[in-house]
């Protein structure tokens, strides 16, 4: 049951094959079993069971609220949830309980969704590994999959070291892992530079980034206001479309949302791609791109062509400037958005009482990790009067150029762009941490962050397993506010590639192997 899609399980609920409470309990039990993945920071067991109960009452009366009623979902811990601790994986907000729900959370709850818990992330969503949070790193469920283990020629039992576990990617790693491990049917992430698509690719799930302005950011603790969007992680494209239908539309509390309301929609099934034009941006053929990913990308392009679509090479000439531009603008907004954490009104406060300045300094040093502090310092540097023109303004101009690149390409008749999502499959944690957060982010965001600068919709769809048995995803980028069309094409593609289901059977059925891994996990965490 847990392996089904959202749509399937929703039908099962409506038909009475399973009750919301049973479903909720199954998920809670699996969350406990997969605790070593560290995907959840907070598991809201009581709340979930209560919500499941209410949902059950509705189903009994035949008055379910819709497709999401009774469906277990998870939310990244940078969305405010009323009465439930929201930490952003930072010491700064440990113990902080918001008094209100983010608009997207409220919308999900209003549809009867059951909130399983808050998922783990890189601290304040800064990072591409979900490794730099205050609650520890998230482990990629594929580390424990049959597919991966077999390729590594290791026995699933009796391993002394669990040191070869893989990262989930980030920063919405917890959400991606939660969905990949079947503990929920959909999860909210956030996407500022690729934070939903990157972990989706590494965890073999669908990661959808809506157009900027389509979905409300009210209640999403901001990183970069002009680029953040709530992201949706699900096990198939159709599920993402269902969730999008519930979340999109104008929010009076967010002045950056479009004015029009959006109605839930059913994603039509595309059968004929011959009228489509797929663009392949040549600048995305980076030298660091792994041979495997390159080959899958190529195969995908060929697939479209063989089915009659027009596949052409296009150019996004300013691509090479986008990393630097992103860094300037991102750190500037971060420096501004982090100014509110001063220890006075909420969150962590140090013990120093000597003066306000001393208190600020100590609170912020204690509350933020060095990634966050580094970005704040960089951002403040760029915003100084003497630097503003040369850095911030310049970067804004380059941003316009980058956005225009996309506009030109789409105006020339291209429907979607097809690119890789990541350079390669998920890295082992020990490999990943050899480089610092900034370096990794710069590398890993290469295919994803220009999309945030242009505010376009994009989706990462799992394609196939690598030679190591790990998921590889490819990215589709659509025109602004043509999210439905984008998802339609992605759904077609998903059907063609038939990405395999992760085999975690041993995990779910064999109690001993789970406890073995738990023990190993606790060893590696101390390490």
């Amino acid at each position, binding site marked *: 049951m847990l392996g089904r899609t959202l749509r399937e399980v929703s039908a099962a609920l409506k038909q009475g094959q399973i009750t919301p409470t049973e479903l909720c309990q199954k998920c809670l039990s699996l969350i406990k079993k997969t605790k070593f993945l560290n995907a959840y920071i907070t598991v809201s067991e009581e709340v979930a069971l209560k919500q499941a109960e209410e949902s059950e009452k509705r189903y009994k009366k035949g008055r379910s609220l819709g497709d999401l009623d009774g469906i277990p979902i998870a939310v990244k811990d940078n969305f405010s949830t009323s009465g439930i601790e929201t930490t952003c994986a930072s010491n700064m907000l440990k113990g902080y309980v918001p008094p209100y729900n983010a608009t997207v959370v409220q919308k999900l709850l209003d549809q009867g969704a059951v909130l399983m818990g808050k998922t783990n992330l890189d601290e304040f969503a800064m990072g591409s590994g979900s490794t730099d949070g205050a609650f520890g790193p998230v482990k990629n469920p594929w580390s424990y999959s049959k597919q991966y283990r077999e390729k590594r020629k290791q026995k699933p039992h009796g391993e002394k070291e669990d040191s070869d576990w893989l990262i989930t990617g980030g920063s919405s790693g917890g959400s991606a892992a939660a969905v990949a491990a079947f503990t929920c049917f959909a999860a909210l992430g956030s996407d500022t530079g690729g934070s939903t698509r990157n972990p989706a690719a590494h965890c073999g799930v669908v990661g959808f980034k809506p157009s900027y302005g389509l979905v409300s950011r009210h209640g999403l603790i901001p990183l*970069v*206001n*002009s680029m953040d969007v709530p992201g949706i992680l699900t096990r198939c494209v159709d599920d993402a479309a269902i969730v999008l239908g519930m979340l999109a539309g104008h929010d*009076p*509390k*967010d*002045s*950056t949302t479009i*004015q029009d309301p959006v109605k839930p929609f059913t994603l039509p099934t595309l059968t004929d791609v011959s009228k489509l034009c797929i663009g392949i941006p040549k600048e995305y053929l980076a030298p660091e791109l792994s041979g495997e990913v390159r080959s899958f990308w190529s195969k995908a392009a060929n697939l479209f062509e063989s089915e009659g679509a027009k596949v052409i090479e296009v150019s996004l000439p300013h691509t090479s400037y986008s990393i630097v531009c992103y860094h300037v603008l991102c750190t*500037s*907004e971060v*420096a*501004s958005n*982090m*100014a*509110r*954490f*001063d220890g*006075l*009104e909420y969150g962590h406060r140090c013990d120093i009482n000597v003066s*306000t*300045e001393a208190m*600020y300094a100590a609170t912020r040093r204690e509350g933020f990790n060095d990634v966050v502090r580094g970005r704040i310092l960089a951002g*403040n540097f760029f*915003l*100084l*009067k003497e630097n*503003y023109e040369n850095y*911030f303004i310049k970067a804004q101009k380059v941003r316009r150029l980058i956005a225009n690149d996309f506009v030109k390409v789409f105006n020339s008749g291209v429907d979607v762009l097809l690119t890789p999502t990541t350079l390669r499959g998920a890295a082992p944690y020990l490999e990943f941490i050899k480089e610092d957060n900034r370096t990794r982010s710069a590398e890993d965001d290469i295919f994803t962050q220009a999309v945030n600068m242009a505010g376009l919709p994009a989706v990462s769809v799992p394609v196939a397993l690598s030679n190591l048995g790990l998921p590889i995803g490819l990215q589709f980028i659509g025109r602004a506010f043509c999210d439905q069309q984008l998802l339609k094409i992605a759904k077609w593609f998903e059907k063609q590639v038939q990405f395999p289901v992760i085999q975690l059977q041993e995990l779910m059925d064999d109690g001993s192997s789970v406890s073995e891994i738990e023990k190993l996990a606790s060893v590696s965490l101390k390490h």
Partner: protein
Amino acid sequence: VLNRRCVEAAVMTGLALNCRINKKSLFDRKHYFYADLPAGYQITQQRLPIAVNGSLAYSVCVGKKPSRVITKTVRIKQIQLEQDSGKSLHDELRSQTLIDLNRAGVGLLEVVLEPDMSCGEEAATAVRELQLILQALGTSRANMAEGQLRVDANVSVHHPGEPLGVRTEVKNLNSAKFLAKAIDSEIERQIHELENGREILNETRSFDYKLGCTMPMRDKEGKQDYRFMPEPNLPPLLLYDTESLPPGADPQQVINIDWIRERLPELPSETRERLIQQYGILPEHSFALLNEVGLLEFFQNVIKETRAEPKKVTSWVLNIFLGFLKQQNLAVNESPVTPSALAELLNLLDRKAISSTAAKQVFEELWRSEGKTPSQIVSEKQLELMQDQEALERACHTVMEGHPQVVMDVKRGNPRAINKLIGLVRKATLSRADPTAIKEILERKLSP
């Protein structure tokens, strides 16, 4: 999220101050750390404010005579929308500061004036005029003591012909009166410093009421780089006029400057003109009527209910009524005498039912004891003027008979003698006769 009423208030104020309303204005973040600024930044309009290049006219008295006024103008540099911070309450005793965040984030209008004023009085007058304008518009009650209008003065001195000197900012001013005092004392201080070879520091100073001068403020040190950045959550503010309004636009979502302009209420300068035209009163009286909160309304209510001439009403309201108010430090709305009561009193006076002396007595009584009408007081104290012309003639005759020497004095041409006779008649009639009537009768009788 932008508050519509704030934008409307800004447009109204901009129009009333002859500004150009920017059809597109932008919002920025101004960053600094302070305990009363919970976000670590304030949203303001540094790059492109909502209104610019306006003017404020005010009248200053020249010399002692109240009738000699000249109109001065101070240019308005800009009006911008911004957020308020919280309030800091310093507890020196416990070395702590209490922060009240209730007003943090609330919309403010900042009006920036150019340095066109040259003394405390000019500034105070300009501010008072601004208060009246804001009150007339309904955009603010502009009470300085209650913080509804906060004024900071930037003061500098220079020799004529030279550029402006280094300025200091003076804060903590809670009335127009102290604003004037603070500015004048700061001007004095700066001149004194410069004449003694010292320099003026570009600093923030606070006005000390007890000492009557400005003191440096300790916690605002050094020049800050505010790291201005465009506010990403507020798109540019677009305003329209009737010409540029997009067809089919939702009125809830747009603001039409022309629509607001058409509905601007009467501004103080217009009101003063109108009073002069409508009631024939003097400019300085018109001025005075607007200078006290509620006085104009009081005046107009009295006018409505009385047949007495506006000049009479003006005199009573500005001299007697206002006099009593000031003596007891009351506001117009705290007056024990209602407009109706005064109107009734003036009616009695107008049809000569009582003398003006009696009227003043009645007024005093009205002030002291509530609930009684003027008519009641008049009858209680028997203040009615004698209406019986014959009886009055007889009284005059009697007095004249009884005081032949005084009559002789009058006939001999002594101008003061007749007053004595009048006084005697008044006494004889228990002050119930109109002195004017008495005089008229006596003069008639005494003329050859």
